[in-house]
């Protein structure tokens, strides 16, 4: 993907949509396209949060290993979704494993660089914080709905 088409992709992506052109340009310069095969790990529980990711293709599973029950899936994330909302907070560590379940192409954004620029340019920092808040809110809402066990037997 050329830099221009990457800028276009980011400008159209719901997470980045509405950012200033100079921010899109900077993020496109930062984005690292990566490809993973089935079974690869994007990161492991306990790893430092070095990047956040935009999944372009494939399926990533967030898992936790539990003795006696094996790997439990917390959630799967697919095309278009943003993974790694904790990057805006320094020195955080990953709380789950992220395993590639279908061959995946994604864009990785260096967390330290995003934080440094956000400190220097609070407008960009605030815009990114709003966007990550939306991601956190959607995850929280989905988790709450799943906790309700809506499809379970009525009591």
């Amino acid at each position, binding site marked *: 993907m050329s830099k221009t088409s990457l800028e276009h992709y980011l400008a159209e992506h719901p997470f980045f949509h509405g950012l200033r052109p100079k921010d899109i340009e900077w993020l496109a310069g930062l984005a690292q396209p990566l490809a993973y095969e089935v079974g690869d790990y994007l990161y492991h529980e306990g790893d430092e949060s070095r990047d956040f990711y935009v999944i372009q293709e494939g399926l990533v599973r967030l898992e936790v290993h539990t003795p006696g029950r*094996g790997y*439990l899936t917390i959630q799967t994330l697919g095309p*278009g979704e943003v993974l790694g909302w904790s990057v805006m907070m320094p020195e955080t560590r990953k709380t789950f494993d992220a395993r590639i379940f279908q061959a995946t192409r994604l864009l990785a954004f260096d967390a330290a660089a995003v934080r440094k620029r956000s400190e220097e340019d609070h407008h960009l920092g605030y815009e990114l914080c709003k966007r990550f808040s939306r991601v956190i809110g959607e995850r929280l809402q989905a988790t709450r709905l799943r906790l309700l066990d*809506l499809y379970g037997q009525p009591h």
Partner: protein
Amino acid sequence: MNACRLPGFAYWTYMVNLISHTPGLDPMLPRPFRVARAIRETADVVTLELEAPAGPPLRFDPGQFTMLYVFGVGEVPISISGDARKPERLVHTIRSVGLATEALCMLRKGGVVGVRGPFGSRWPMEQARGGDVVVVAGGIGLPPLRPVIYHILHHRKDYGRVYLLYGARTPSDLLFTEELKRWQHTLSHAPGASPVLVTVDRAEGSWDGAVGMVTSLIPNLRLDPAHTTAMIVGPEVMMRFTIAELRKRGIPEARLYLSVERNMKCAVGFCGRCQLGLQFVCKDGPVFAFSQVRNWMTQKEV
């Protein structure tokens, strides 16, 4: 509450006269049907294929339901889950949640069940023609939508991109798994498209699909939102969040349809048991345009 309006005496007189003066039309009288096949779908869900020992088959449209009567136990409304083109086999998929549904799920080949109907409104198959279609099913919400899928398959060229989004509790709760695999190909609008998207709330072991809410599947669908019709069945909370997500995608409110469940007794608008605001779910529904029920869906105890 100020908007409740019960039908007046003239309405009752009209209905009683209509029934008593129309030969062969007694919607309160069950017709005996025989179980031709009972299929156990999951631990608590059974599909019954019924045949009429005498008389014509029961013709229906996608979205309609019947009242199924287990003699000596009780009668319940159940959506028809079969193919409207094959009315000689009347198909219902039933989850065991109470006395009558438990008795229905216990029926075996040769068993007899009373059938009244079909009743109720239809899915907007005509209005949806020429555009994209999103079918969203949660849990036991898939069976009332299966006739929609059959209809689209019979008229595939009349519709654009078609998606079936299906959320279930666990992989072992998934219904019609063989058909879901087939529909991945037969519903497809283009090579490589994945029209059937399944997600579960919880997964362990060998499940190789998505885990999460069915609403999370909506943002990335390739659609022409202005010309997309959505048909939704599931728990009401799930339907509310699904509608919010579909609206975010720009699908017009007028193109959102859902099937509502309420306790029913008569199924013909007599008893008022299933009244939802100004509507009777049994005769004005169960399929409603969202605009018809929008204000009632957030009212508690309605």
